């Protein structure tokens, strides 16, 4: 009787586990910060000007063959903003722009992926900058993909005013245009 009970329990447990065993878990990837980058390019006086975020992290669960179960969350440290002209970065941290004192992080989350070409995808998700969360779509290409390593490159174009980035007199899009292109390169290693 005892033995029977034990067997019943084992069987029940295995039966409960079966659905998850039948499908391999979506692999988790770790970002290699030294080989990854997030940059942005705005337009002032009809000329482009760029900067980057030096610090960001992410939880990346992605498998090209299991898009429906893939999900990604990227967190950007807004205080790590850097521009070749340092004064510009200092201005971007102020209350009228990123307001990094009150909103030190920007967060992008997505679990909606679509394949658009052999190695090209789109990700529809929510991006939070300051206190505004806005749906965005980004395009990316999986440039390299092996069992241990992946290289992903992509971009999206944001409207800065949708996030309240550039308030007051800066809300005018004559001198600093609304559209800001964000480019990213993620070098990933499988956990």
């Amino acid at each position, binding site marked *: 009787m005892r033995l029977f009970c034990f067997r019943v329990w084992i069987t029940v447990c295995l039966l409960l586990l079966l659905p998850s065993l039948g499908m391999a878990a979506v692999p988790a990837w770790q970002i290699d910060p030294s080989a990854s980058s997030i940059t942005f390019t705005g337009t002032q006086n009809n000329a482009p000007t760029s900067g980057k975020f030096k610090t960001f992290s992410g939880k990346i669960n992605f498998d090209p063959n299991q898009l429906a179960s893939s999900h990604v969350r990227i967190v950007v440290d807004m205080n790590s903003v850097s521009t070749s*002209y*340092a004064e510009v970065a200092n201005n971007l941290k102020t209350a009228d722009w990123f307001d990094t004192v009150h909103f030190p992080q920007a967060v992008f989350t997505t679990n909606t992926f679509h394949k658009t070409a052999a190695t090209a995808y789109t990700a529809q998700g929510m991006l939070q900058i300051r206190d505004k969360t806005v749906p965005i779509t980004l395009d990316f290409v999986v440039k390299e993909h092996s069992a241990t390593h992946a290289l992903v490159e992509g971009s999206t174009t944001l409207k800065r005013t949708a996030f309240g980035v550039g308030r007051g007199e800066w809300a005018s899009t004559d001198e600093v245009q609304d559209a800001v292109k964000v480019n990213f390169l993620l070098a990933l290693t499988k956990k």
Partner: protein
Amino acid sequence: MQLKNTENSYGMVTLILHWGMAVIIVALLVLGLYMTRVPVSPLKFKLYGWHKEVGILILMLAMIRVVWWSANILPVLPATLPRWQKMAAHAVHAAFYVFMFLLPLSGWLMSSAAGFPVSFFGWFLLPDLITPHEGWRVLLSETHEWLGYGLIATFCAHVGAALKHHFINKDNILRRMLP
């Protein structure tokens, strides 16, 4: 009035280049002194944008001016003029040509060093001459500033000499640059 210079007078093209560029350059000097004192704001961005594209216009006009200068003779200076004054006049004119090139070029270089490329009135984008670099930006911005002060000093000497010849010597030096 003829287009080209003669031994006694300046031609129409030289006159237009001289006075047109004089007005633009004085405006650039005033704008440059003013805009650098404006706190960071959209207005400051707008003023810098104007200063940069008009500065590049001056660089283009300076190239035309050199071509025109090389294709023309210069009216001779009065024989009564002392040798040192002739040399001073030539030195001031040479300095203006140097400033007409070095000021826009140093401005273009500092824009590249700052990572703020120059658009020419939205028509086209100027290529970056150097990659962004904070050290170069500071050095070039100081160079640009001191070239500007040098131009103001040269401008004062030039205008002072022209007025002195007109009102004290009562010769035709200033009049021959008038229409």
